[in-house]
């Protein structure tokens, strides 16, 4: 019954989505406010409610493990802990698509109920675009991926959730990323509406900014969480593999970061109109391209998603319609947009343009690397692209970008003089030189890590320099946000550079009682014994860690899950303020010996702390902009009120 309610709600929502699209499209055509076009806002809101009902139904059938629902039988098992039974609802293709549509619907409802900054025609057009995007996914769900399909007769046992996904980090990772992807769809709809209604000024930028910021925060958190998950759950000791699936989440982030900064220029200075519009389309297209690459199985990835060429074709079709359509609209209309204000190179705009060009270049590098195997395969040769390509080539663009990032926020809008910021420039130069010398003298790290460490230190200092000459209590919240986010970049960069420069690795086969040295620690293998969990059994090693001021026991496990049968390696981590000790239990090596893999990774945790700081900075900026938006509209209302009062007085 619950599943039928869910399906019915989904169909009704799809109908309302069609209504939203049609009435929005009618509203987009002109100024006349016909009865049909008035339906667009209510249609969006009710649609969102129905989608929530549908999604809750899906959560319900997963929570109670209703095995007569095919999706539950294929992806869940009654023996799993409740949290993973529920997260199993979106740990599969159909459920995650429903989640996607639900978030999309919620965004439409939010636009419909909250967006007052733009005129009615713009909002209707944006909602029509939003509805059009959603319609494709509705079709996808209802025609080829019905999450509520029944199984007759019901299955006796569920097949279970991939054990690698039975992890709290990964339970939360997809929803976070989806909020990001879908948030970018709002930016996309706004941009399309801007092209249709020929509005591409500061108002559009201000209306887009909270959405892009929210999406960007989610993407940042999602990528950080995904990277940490890969780090401890896959047991390979690395935190980023330049895998197509990882790149699929990085590319929208890069585009969104560029978009965020160009929106800043458009909102403050009414410049970069065409560029911002294009980035709006690019950002969403990157999330669609990412989804396509991941789901179609067109690229070989370590992340074994359930792939299906038919679904791939469907997504490719949607991609062609939406993104192709938007770029066609861009080609037709963008030329007619007014150019926007001019500025000189040495200005805040100039620095932000540089940031945008570098970010776009990095995006192009990652996109090319991800697609290159596809391209070369079409030409008959097989290659795989890895860190030897990505690391140096992205660095070529990232290093200048980070250098400009140290200086850019100090510049004034429109035009500036070097002499005005001479003092902070000297300070930045001195810190940079000193940190390069210090790193070279004391560590002997490679070229890239050396540059990374020196830049991290410089940026950590430079990110707070905009405070100079200001009263900290009068600094706007959004500026605090940007400084914090830039500081987060420095922290994260320090972690990456330190991990690659100073990690030590030991791969050994040892007997119980043997001692291995790794970093500042001594690791002694104790007993290796079987342990049992709710739906797994495991061999657990006890490794006594001493030295470096520690005396503790690490318990890495080699787990065997029953439903579905699969082995996973559970790393044991010892987190210290100055790094992490990472231990993996491998296979039995014969004669009572066990393979152990131990890493000491100094300051590796900074990578993810930095990610969290970046997201926090985004949150502060979001709050700051929302508050100033509210204040601005209040002032506007007050002025309008006073004018009306004065007019009525004059009339009297």
């Amino acid at each position, binding site marked *: 019954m619950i599943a039928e309610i869910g399906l019915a709600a989904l169909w009704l929502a799809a109908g309302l989505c069609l209504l939203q699209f049609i009435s929005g499209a009618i509203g987009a055509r002109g100024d006349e406010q016909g009865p049909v076009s008035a339906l667009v806002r209510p249609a969006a809101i009710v649609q969102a409610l129905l989608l929530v009902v549908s999604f809750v139904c899906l959560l319900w059938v997963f929570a109670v493990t209703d095995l007569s629902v095919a999706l539950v039988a294929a992806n869940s098992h009654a023996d799993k802990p409740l949290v993973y039974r529920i997260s199993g609802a979106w740990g599969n293709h159909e459920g995650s698509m429903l989640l996607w549509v639900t978030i999309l619907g919620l965004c439409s409802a939010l636009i419909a109920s909250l967006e007052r900054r733009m005129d009615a025609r713009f909002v209707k057009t944006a909602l029509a675009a939003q509805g059009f995007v959603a319609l494709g996914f509705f079709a996808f769900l209802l025609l080829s991926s019905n999450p509520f399909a029944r199984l007759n007769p019901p299955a006796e046992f569920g097949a279970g959730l991939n054990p690698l996904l039975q992890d709290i980090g990964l339970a939360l990772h997809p929803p976070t990323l989806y909020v990001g992807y879908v948030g970018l769809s709002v930016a996309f709809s706004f941009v399309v509406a801007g092209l249709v209604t020929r509005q591409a000024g500061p108002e559009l930028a201000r209306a887009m900014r909270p959405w892009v910021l929210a999406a960007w925060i989610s993407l940042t958190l999602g990528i950080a969480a995904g990277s940490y998950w890969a780090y401890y759950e896959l047991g390979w000791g690395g935190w980023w593999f330049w895998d197509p699936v990882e790149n699929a989440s990085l590319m929208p982030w890069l585009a969104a970061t560029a978009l965020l900064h160009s929106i800043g220029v458009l909102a403050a200075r009414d410049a970069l109109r065409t560029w911002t519009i294009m980035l709006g389309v690019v950002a969403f297209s990157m999330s669609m391209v990412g989804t396509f690459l991941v789901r179609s199985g*067109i690229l070989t990835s370590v992340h074994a998603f359930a792939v299906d060429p038919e679904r791939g074709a469907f997504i*490719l079709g949607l991609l062609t319609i939406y993104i192709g359509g938007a770029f066609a609209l861009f*080609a037709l209309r963008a030329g007619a947009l007014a150019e926007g204000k001019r500025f000189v190179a040495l200005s805040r705009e100039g620095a932000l343009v540089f940031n945008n060009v570098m970010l776009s270049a990095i995006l192009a590098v990652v996109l090319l690397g991800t697609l290159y195997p596809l391209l070369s395969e*079409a030409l008959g040769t097989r290659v795989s692209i890895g860190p030897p390509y990505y690391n140096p080539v992205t660095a070529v663009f990232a290093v200048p970008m980070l250098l400009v990032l140290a200086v850019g926020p100090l510049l004034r809008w429109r035009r500036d003089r070097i002499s005005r910021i001479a003092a902070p420039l000297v300070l930045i130069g001195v810190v940079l030189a000193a940190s390069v010398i210090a790193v070279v003298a004391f560590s002997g790290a490679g070229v890239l890590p050396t540059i990374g460490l020196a830049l991290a230190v410089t940026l950590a200092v430079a990110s707070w320099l905009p405070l100079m000459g200001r009263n900290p209590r009068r600094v706007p919240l959004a500026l605090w946000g940007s400084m914090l986010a830039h500081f987060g970049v420095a922290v994260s960069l320090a972690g990456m550079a330190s991990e690659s420069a100073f990690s030590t690795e030991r791969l050994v086969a040892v007997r119980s009682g043997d001692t291995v040295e790794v970093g500042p620690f001594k690791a002694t293998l104790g007993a290796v014994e079987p342990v049992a969990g709710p739906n797994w059994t495991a061999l657990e090693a006890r490794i006594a860690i001493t030295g470096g001021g520690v005396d503790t026991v690490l318990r890495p496990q080699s787990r065997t899950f029953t439903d579905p049968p699969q082995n996973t390696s559970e790393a044991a981590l010892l987190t210290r303020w100055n790094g992490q000790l990472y231990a993996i239990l491998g296979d039995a090596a014969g004669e009572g010996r066990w393979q152990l893999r131990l890493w000491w990774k100094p300051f590796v945790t900074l990578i993810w702390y930095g990610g969290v700081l970046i997201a926090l900075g985004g949150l502060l900026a979001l709050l700051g902009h929302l508050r100033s938006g509210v204040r601005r509209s209040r002032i506007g209302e007050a002025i309008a009120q006073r004018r009306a009062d004065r007019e009525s007085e004059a009339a009297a």
Partner: protein
Amino acid sequence: MKRLWLILPLALFGLFIGLAAYQMTQPKDEFVRSTMIGKPLPAFDLPGETEDAPRLTSQMFADGKPRLLNVWATWCVPCIAEAPQLDALAKRGVPIVGVAIRDEPEAIAQFLDQYGNPYTAIARDDIAELQLALGSSGVPETFVIDGKGVIRYQHIGDIRADNIDEIYAEWEKAK
């Protein structure tokens, strides 16, 4: 000029769609084949089965005799399953050179003791250098090397009973 620039994103996007659509219609291989097939063995110089055994080099393969090169390890369970098939091939007169990945002399001796020794010689590849150079992505894998030292064929995974004839035929072909 400006108009042309505005069409650029659409053109690039069209290129991507075309490429993706083309690749979607192509059959997908299940295994990643080595690109080394048809190329000479990568140069190597590895220690032998024990500390005293002579070292093995890539030059030894260019003596006119085709051989099998079997990438394996004592810690690999499918390699145990493969042992009888390798024995059968050895009995049919196929010389097999083993490359033991990340292994130790005692473990190798024990393994051969327990599961039989089909090898004419074994090289120890302690850091998987030869394996990587061969483009082999796992253990076990078996390559057919012709008398000039050129890689002719790659079998991925353990050799099952019904693969024996096929591999024997490939070895014959390499003569």
